[in-house]
């Protein structure tokens, strides 16, 4: 069909658009794709040069390394308003972007698997009018000569093992910040877990704050954000939060997980009190679990109804309430929420399919005689998701329908499907892990010499890089270079993708389709399964082996580039290094030593070696011995 078009005259509509519009279209493409369009016609030839967005994706950047990249960079217009730099592998060419930073950049978006090196961070000071900064790699604030961003409005940043000083510096240096996405990742097994850490965040202009805390044990956050409108907290080990007054709060979303319920109740109450003035509230199942158990304790103590009502703060402005509930959940808590929020209009209940392990018995539910006033007067939309028709569910429904006099719309959906990830239908998948082997690049790529292990019922919801690491440890694989996954029904040449972070996992799901088998391939530093301690990749003067290996991996696609990537494979220093590190067989001890030297991202153990390190690699191995 398509070839017919050559002969039938299609009206050239796209060229009827103005240059500005075409530039706007090109700005949505990655730079290499937009350079390609220069071949379309005379008119398109110079168009890409005036596009003010540079967008380098992983392969793009790799492809156009060397002179090609330089050509693109110098031909492009002098003013760059947006620069996106995404890459899942370590790039030696990273510093190429430094001269770009002086070009009046407004938006900078960097995604790397390593910690940003100090030089690069320092060169951010050239970006005087930077308004949006998104860094999805480990970021370290070198407080020494940190100048900050005077006009920054949006900041997305992830910091591993942060210290209070750097947090203070960060929040002080951004004077007009409006949006902050803060990802704090702590080591799972570092010494620092033993003591309390407290952080101060003080940003008077902030409107949207979202905090993602992973493994933050014994953390305490003191947050002063008087102008906040949206709050989103996700915490894997419920930290203590102290929020100062937030009178403008409109939206709050809380998702906290705890292991210790004792303290958690107080913290949860404290947090709820802090957000009580919000008009929209959303609580996750794990958060509800905490509240439910608090409720359960009060119930079992037989405290009178009036005292029980004290447990929740009142929500004077709340109009939209979204609660995730679960089996064994006490409806009394929902009713109590309703009683405490007189203005409520929209109620959404999502039922999780999984049983909450803390509440095994279904508490009996006796509805009170007088219904909450908001149910009688205000509520006009009720949405119920995931109800399967159990006895207690029907009772609640009956109660709601009987009392909601103003109800306009009731939606009941028996499938709980988060619109964000519609793939969760297949809850359990089979994971095949190929490990301890290596890739051979002939006409086709194949993985040889390894073992295949199968994990039969893996919960898709819970699959994360961390989880995969645990699985690998079970198989005796402690260190690896990369994890790859294969897109179902594609061969290893076309269908192999790197799996480095949780975004990749999400992408992997999207390929899953009808199949329920995931196939993972582990690439090791050496063909054999040998423990190798961290070696140093980045910022060394000595050419190091693995960078080159990275390159070779793609070489059969890109023959023309293979000449550039062929040194260092037999570098003697590298051999010394890995030999010496084989003796180093106590990973814990090693970790501690390592921690004292370098910051490390827990989630990506595969990149252990990849984290920046200013030392020469021979030095570091001596250090260890």
């Amino acid at each position, binding site marked *: 069909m*398509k*070839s017919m*078009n*050559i002969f039938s*005259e*299609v*009206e*050239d*509509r*796209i*060229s*009827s*658009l*103005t240059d*500005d*519009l075409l530039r*706007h*279209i*090109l*700005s*949505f*493409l*990655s730079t*290499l*794709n937009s*350079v*390609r*369009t*220069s*071949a*379309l*016609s*005379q008119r398109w*030839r110079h168009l890409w040069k005036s596009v003010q967005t540079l967008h380098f994706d992983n*392969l*793009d950047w790799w*492809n156009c390394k060397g002179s090609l990249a330089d050509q693109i960079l110098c031909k492009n217009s002098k003013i760059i308003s947006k620069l996106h730099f995404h890459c899942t592998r370590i790039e030696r060419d990273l510093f190429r972007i430094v001269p770009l930073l002086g070009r009046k950049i407004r938006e900078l978006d960097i995604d790397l698997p390593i910690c940003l090196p100090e030089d690069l961070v320092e060169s951010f000071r050239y970006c005087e009018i930077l308004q949006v900064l998104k860094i999805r790699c480990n970021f370290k604030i070198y407080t020494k000569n940190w100048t900050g961003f005077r006009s920054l409005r949006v900041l997305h940043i992830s910091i591993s093992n942060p210290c209070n000083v750097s947090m203070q510096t960060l929040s002080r240096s951004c004077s007009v910040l409006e949006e902050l996405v803060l990802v704090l990742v702590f080591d799972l097994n570092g010494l620092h877990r033993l003591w309390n850490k407290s952080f101060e965040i003080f940003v008077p202009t902030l409107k949207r704050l979202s905090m993602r805390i992973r493994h933050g044990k014994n953390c305490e956050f003191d947050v002063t954000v008087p102008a906040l409108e949206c709050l989103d907290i996700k915490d894997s080990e419920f930290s203590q939060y102290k929020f100062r007054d937030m009178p403008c709060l409109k939206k709050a979303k809380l998702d906290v997980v705890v292991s210790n319920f004792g303290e958690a109740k107080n913290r949860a109450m404290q947090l709820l009190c802090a957000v009580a003035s919000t008009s*929209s509230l959303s609580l996750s199942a794990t958060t509800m679990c905490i509240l439910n158990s608090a409720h359960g304790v009060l119930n079992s103590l037989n405290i009178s109804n009036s005292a029980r009502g004290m447990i929740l703060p009142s929500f004077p402005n709340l109009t*939209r309430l979204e609660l995730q509930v679960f089996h064994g959940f006490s409806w009394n808590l929902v009713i109590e929420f309703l009683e405490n929020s007189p203005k409520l209009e929209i109620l959404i209940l999502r039922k999780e399919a999984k049983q909450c392990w803390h509440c095994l018995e279904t508490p009996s539910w006796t509805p009170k005689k007088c219904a909450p006033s908001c149910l009688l007067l205000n509520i006009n939309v009720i949405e119920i998701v995931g109800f399967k028709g159990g006895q207690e569910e029907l009772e609640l429904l009956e109660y709601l329908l009987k009392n909601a006099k103003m109800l306009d719309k009731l939606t009941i959906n028996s499938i709980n499907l988060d*619109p*964000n990830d519609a793939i969760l239908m297949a809850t359990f998948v089979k994971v095949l892990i190929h490990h301890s082997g290596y890739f051979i690049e002939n006409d086709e790529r194949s993985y040889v010499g390894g073992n295949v292990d199968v994990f039969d019922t893996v919960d898709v919801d819970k699959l994360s890089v961390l989880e995969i690491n645990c699985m690998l440890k079970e198989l005796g694989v402690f260190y690896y270079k990369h994890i790859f996954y294969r897109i179902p029904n594609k061969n290893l040449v076309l269908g192999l993708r790197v799996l480095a972070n949780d975004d990749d996992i999400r992408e992997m799901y999207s390929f899953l389709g009808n199949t329920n088998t995931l196939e993972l391939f582990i690439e090791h530093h050496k063909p054999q399964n040998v423990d190798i301690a961290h070696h140093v990749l980045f910022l060394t003067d000595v050419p190091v082996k693995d960078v080159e290996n990275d390159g070779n991996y793609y070489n059969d696609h890109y023959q023309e580039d293979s000449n550039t990537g062929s040194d260092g494979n037999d570098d003697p220093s590298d051999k010394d290094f890995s030999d010496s590190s084989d003796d180093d067989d106590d990973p814990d001890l090693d970790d501690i030593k390592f921690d004292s030297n370098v910051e490390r991202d827990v989630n990506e153990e595969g990149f252990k070696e990849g984290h920046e390190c200013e030392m020469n690699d021979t030095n570091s191995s001596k250090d260890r011995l």
Partner: protein
Amino acid sequence: MSSSLEKNMLILRSSDGEEFIVPEVVAVMSKAIKNMVEDECASNTIPVPNVDANILAMVIEFCKKHDESEAEAASDLKTFDSEFVNRGQEALYDLITAANFRDVKELLDALCQNVAEMIKGKSVHHIRIQFLGYQLFEILTSNFIWNIWCDRDFD
């Protein structure tokens, strides 16, 4: 007739004379109309030249949806957007022109994103066939070297 309308309603008249009654909040999503309203140079009927009834209806549909679902989940809006822009080439470019002319930023971004998606990952050859139709010969002669470079299969 115009006095009987509610105060916050506006009438938009397309280039072929059809009239649409829309709430003001929806209409001012177009910066151009917003300026007119703010300057009070608009009576109740605002002419929208260069945009025919068909396209205007689509633009209004888009604006209405975006206005309504401001509070709702962003993901819903995204699916709506992607379905909305999924149209034939003809309508697509008319919409782009209209969105640009009336300065509706959300619509313009969604549409341009869609065109970019269509260009992405295709070889130059395919883009030409899809978008430029019949210009193959001319380009081949003029840009020979670029062609070789650009036609490499990047993915």
